């Protein structure tokens, strides 16, 4: 029986998908451009059917995100890329860590806690301490799903997902409870509000101009992108990660130490998410609040997948996705359309990129039956 579904027989052609063995670099780039153009074409239809000028809509989205708003885009990208680096390694080994959101939160919480504990420490000591604390907390929080998966075969999607909710509730508890704001403004002490105090001033990372793009986050992203490349391509550890991902059964028979490898994997994946949480707290938000859980851990999943374990790929994917988010706000301001359109736009764009991925991996052939 030929490839393709039976009901497809009504067509005069059948579709055959041939995996591409070698993909030239220029073709990869062509495909990505094609995907973006495709999404623009679809959105043009959507906008036209709703009597919206598509040109101004696109301009509002992209010209701003990669023009005037580039610092905001980069700032958002740094946090997301940091999470995505860890996720991409986990995904490469088929560990479906949906829990970056929770790991990000415990990272921010721990960093905040350290800042709260040592408010008088010099910035040179406090900043590394808070960042390290964030990394350690995320890494530890990632260990439970790792151990449960290897030892008891508990599906990591459910454990990481549940740990997200638990981290969110922990954040709420701390913000409304022991870490609740107490600050004196105009001679009156304010407390009870849905926020904590600022982290110590010396722990707030310096940023480029008025933006929220911090030098430290750029440095961390650069370091970990290179580290990822080195780990994945130049060390036996990276090789083992890939083997697990490519053929888990074979890896098991080859006597690989699954538990140790998975724990290291989640140490990196959870740790980087935790570090991102600490960085976001120290560079941008400076305070914890219930809304600190804003879905970055989920957005980073998309980036990790788009970029694969290729450092350049992750960076570009991160900037692209951050651009869509930042551009989305400008899109709202310029067109006056409700935020739902941004979601539709982003959804269409993502599916187009997925379509591009498909074209990159398969050659489509039409043949007569």
């Amino acid at each position, binding site marked *: 029986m030929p*490839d*393709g*579904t*039976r*009901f497809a027989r009504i067509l005069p052609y059948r579709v055959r*998908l041939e*995996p591409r063995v070698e993909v030239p670099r220029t073709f990869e780039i062509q495909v990505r451009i094609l995907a973006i153009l495709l999404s623009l074409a679809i959105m043009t239809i959507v906008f036209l059917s709703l009597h919206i000028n598509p040109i101004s809509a696109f301009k509002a989205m992209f010209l701003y995100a990669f023009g005037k708003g580039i610092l905001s885009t980069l700032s958002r990208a740094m946090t997301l890329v940091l999470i995505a680096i860890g996720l991409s390694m986990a*995904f490469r080994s088929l560990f*479906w860590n949906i829990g970056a959101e929770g790991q990000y939160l415990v990272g921010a919480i721990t960093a905040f806690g350290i800042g709260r504990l040592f408010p008088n420490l010099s910035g040179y000591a406090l900043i590394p301490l808070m960042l390290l604390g964030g990394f350690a907390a995320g890494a530890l929080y990632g260990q439970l799903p790792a151990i*449960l998966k290897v030892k*008891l*075969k*508990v*599906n990591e*999607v*459910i*454990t990481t*997902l*549940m*740990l997200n*909710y*638990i981290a969110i*509730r*922990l954040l*709420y*508890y701390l913000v*409304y*409870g022991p870490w609740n704001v107490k600050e004196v403004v105009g001679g009156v002490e304010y407390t009870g509000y849905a926020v904590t105090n600022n982290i110590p001033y010396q722990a707030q990372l310096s940023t480029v101009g008025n933006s929220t793009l911090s030098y430290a986050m750029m440095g961390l992203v650069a370091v970990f992108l290179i580290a990822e490349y080195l780990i994945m391509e130049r060390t036996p550890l990276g090789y083992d990660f890939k083997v697990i991902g490519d053929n888990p059964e074979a890896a098991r028979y080859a006597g690989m130490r699954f538990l140790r490898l998975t724990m290291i994997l989640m140490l990196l994946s959870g740790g980087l998410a935790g570090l991102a949480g600490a960085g976001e707290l120290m560079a941008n938000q400076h305070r914890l609040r219930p809304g600190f859980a804003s879905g970055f851990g*989920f957005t980073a*999943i*998309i980036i990790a*997948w*788009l970029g694969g374990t290729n450092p350049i790929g992750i960076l570009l994917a991160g900037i692209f996705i951050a651009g869509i988010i930042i551009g989305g706000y400008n899109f709202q301001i310029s067109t006056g359309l*409700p*935020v*739902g*359109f*941004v*979601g*539709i*736009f*982003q*959804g*269409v764009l*993502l*599916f187009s990129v*997925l*379509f591009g*991925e*498909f074209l990159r*991996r*398969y050659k489509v052939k039409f043949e007569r039956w």
Partner: protein
Amino acid sequence: MNVQILNFIIYQAMKSGTPLLLATLGEIYAERAGILNLGIEGMMAFGAVVGFGVAYTTGNPWLGLLLGALAGALISLIHAFFSISLRVNQVVSGLALVILGLGIHSVMGKPYVGQKLSNTITGIISPSLAQIPVVGSIIVQDPIAFLGLALSVVLWYVLFKTKYGIILRSVGENPAAADALGINVYKVRYLATIFGGLMAGLAGAYLSIIFRPSWTEGITAGMGWIAIALTIFSLWNPIHALWASYFFGAISASQYLLQGKGIPVDILGMMPYIFTLVIVVIASLAQLKKRIGAPEALAVPYVRGQS
């Protein structure tokens, strides 16, 4: 425990549990066929807005439920096409579906904000029956709650006791072997994904038409994610899904009974998730020998002639 409290827990277990159950049942079928669809939240949101819009415009809540379910099926086709025909990464496709579905729901819902349905669907209204312990809180439930109950039995039967169930499971466990037996893997996977969308759409429409029959944006409020967890929690078994959903509903509801007794609200709020974790671990301990896990080919695209 007095009768009111007992009745409340049972009542709320079914009320909060039903939308979760409907979405979980659909996801179980999709995942049994090997398709992981993380887009439940988006499909539910789309089903909710279409369902509400139809029920609001026509005044017919049943039509709203039907078209809400169909809307879920329609949008799930995108995921089916991308993950089955185009063989792309199912996690990303599912996440994209969430973003898309929530976006559409927000845009489409704008005209209905603050509107309520003049007709909704209620269960048997009999204040005297409602007072009976346990039974009373079940009797007053709406028809869709009973539909969910019945469906979990029917879907369990189909999945484990019929030829169709064997086909579905074999496609999810070993598509190559299923293909060799002459089963059209692509078709089965398409149908299972669409069924998953249908159920998610119904769950969404249930929320906006029966659970809380007035329109505000974001009515799904994260339920789609809980359904994904419950799918795994129930070990891909429709009967387990029934009690897992009700259990989750009961635990979430009973935290409010324990408030004001010195335990922090957020520690109580963690309960449903901690319980879920603990039960999954216990279930895994018990099942380890029998190896009941995810369908072997879950989230793995099927390519003919490979593997």
